[in-house]
């Protein structure tokens, strides 16, 4: 059972790292935080419409909420009255608060518990099995996260150069005929799907940690994006190893341990970076 738990954590980390790298280099790190909070009303509304709570319908609901978040944030930025930070800081609390209100009003008695939303139920994940024709294929979460990891990996591989171009210089992307806006929305959809699937496993805030922290750690020691991805995967896997150790020895939240461990890895790499920093060269522009 522990093996399955570790496998789930591994696949979740791998799935999160890919969109995370692009979010970090595009300077959209807090969209992951915004999306993971704003998915809540989508999940709640889907749940209220159809009390079955299957993963697939929840993903659809969360996707709709995610897209609505992105569209509304961009609409606010389009008025040019607020910067991106402010727009994000207005939209996701709105959605999250609406989700909480809906839960309090209509869904208090069911197991859509707020603690679970924030914490995820990683420890329970191995108990929800994927049963096909009477055969037990393993935990549902493992299949789901593996599928997401594959989709993210393959999707990124196929449109890597287009995503890279759109992230670095969207004007050239536009004049070269690659649609930067479409790519942006695709990335947001990928992030939303990853968020909602990982939500279930590790909870809202640890998803953010998994997306951002290994990618940021990799940013400190990579000179190009491909190297950054591989480094981020390595740091993510190290975080899983460290997190499992912490959770097992101290008997604490597995999801929290994962986030803490990724932070610890970041600290180690940062200290090495700091020591090697050329003090004369001002890194801030």
């Amino acid at each position, binding site marked *: 059972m522990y093996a399955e738990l570790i496998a789930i954590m591994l696949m979740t980390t791998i799935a999160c790292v890919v969109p995370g790298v692009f979010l970090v280099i595009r300077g959209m790190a807090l969209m992951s935080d915004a999306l993971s909070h704003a998915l809540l009303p989508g999940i709640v509304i889907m749940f209220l419409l159809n009390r079955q709570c299957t993963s697939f319908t929840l993903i659809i609901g969360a996707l709709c909420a995610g897209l609505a978040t992105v569209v509304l944030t961009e609409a606010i930025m389009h008025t040019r009255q607020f910067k991106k930070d402010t727009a994000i800081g207005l939209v996701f609390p709105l959605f999250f608060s609406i989700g909480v209100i809906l839960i309090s009003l209509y869904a208090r008695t069911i197991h859509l518990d707020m603690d679970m939303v924030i914490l995820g139920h990683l420890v329970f994940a191995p108990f929800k099995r994927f049963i096909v024709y009477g055969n037990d294929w393993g935990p549902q979460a493992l299949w789901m996260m593996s599928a997401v990891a594959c989709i993210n990996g393959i999707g990124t591989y196929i449109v890597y*150069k287009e995503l890279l*171009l759109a992230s670095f210089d969207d004007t*050239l992307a536009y004049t*070269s005929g690659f649609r930067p806006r479409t790519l942006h929305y695709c990335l947001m959809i990928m992030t939303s799907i990853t968020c909602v699937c990982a939500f279930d496993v590790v909870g809202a805030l640890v998803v953010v940690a998994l997306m951002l922290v290994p990618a940021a750690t990799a940013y400190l020691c990579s000179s190009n994006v491909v190297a*950054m991805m591989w480094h981020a995967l390595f740091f993510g896997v190290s975080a899983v190893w460290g997190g499992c150790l912490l959770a097992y020895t101290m008997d604490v939240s597995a999801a929290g341990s994962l986030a803490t461990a990724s932070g610890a890895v970041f600290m180690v790499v940062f200290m090495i970076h700091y020591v090697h920093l050329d003090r004369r060269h001002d890194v801030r522009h």
Partner: protein
Amino acid sequence: MNAALVIQELTVAYQKKPVLWHVNAVIPQGIMMAVVGPNGAGKSTLLKTAIQLIKPMSGCIELFGQNHASALQRVAYVPQRLSIDWTFPITVLEVVLMGTYASLGWFVRPGHKERKRALDALQAVEMDTYADTSISQLSGGQQQRIFIARALVQQADLYLMDEPFVGIDAPTELLIVSIMQSLRDQGKTMIIVHHDLQSIDTHFEWIMLLNVQCIAYGQRDRVFTQENLAKTYGKHVAMRI
């Protein structure tokens, strides 16, 4: 032969404030033209409207006689250096390779041919030894050079550049000018937003004076007069021409 750029009654406004107003111009191929004017004159906006990044309120710009996106294949746009994120984790060669993406289309990766083109372009701007360097380590002049290399790789017919000479060293400036002049001699068209009136004489043979409206454009000897400068900048500019 089609003119490189035909601007007809172009008006671009933002929130009721006009940025470009009834601009008309016909710019032929094979020239090097400077676009000059005070701050807020709409120079960058003109370039961005030409590459269809901004939608005009009225009027249009035609590139090589065409009005749609396929014409953009023949245009290379070099943005202001400030608009780029220089902390992006990417190497010099990767930036220059980006100029080849348009010819490759979706899903196809750059191959040996594209790498060779990119390295040749880097050699032309004397940056080939920096191919695997991260762009965060480049100086201002070096940054501008790799953008010129990227534009070269695009093998365009029209080059639009937004203030390429700001904040770069003299050797880089001379190198870029000589590259531009050789492109012009091959029949390409260069339209450059320029900030320094002193160097107009040495670099450009055509000039457009822009201050929301097009004050004058055409051959430098005819257009670059005290009177036109006064109309563009107000009465404060005194130049020894």
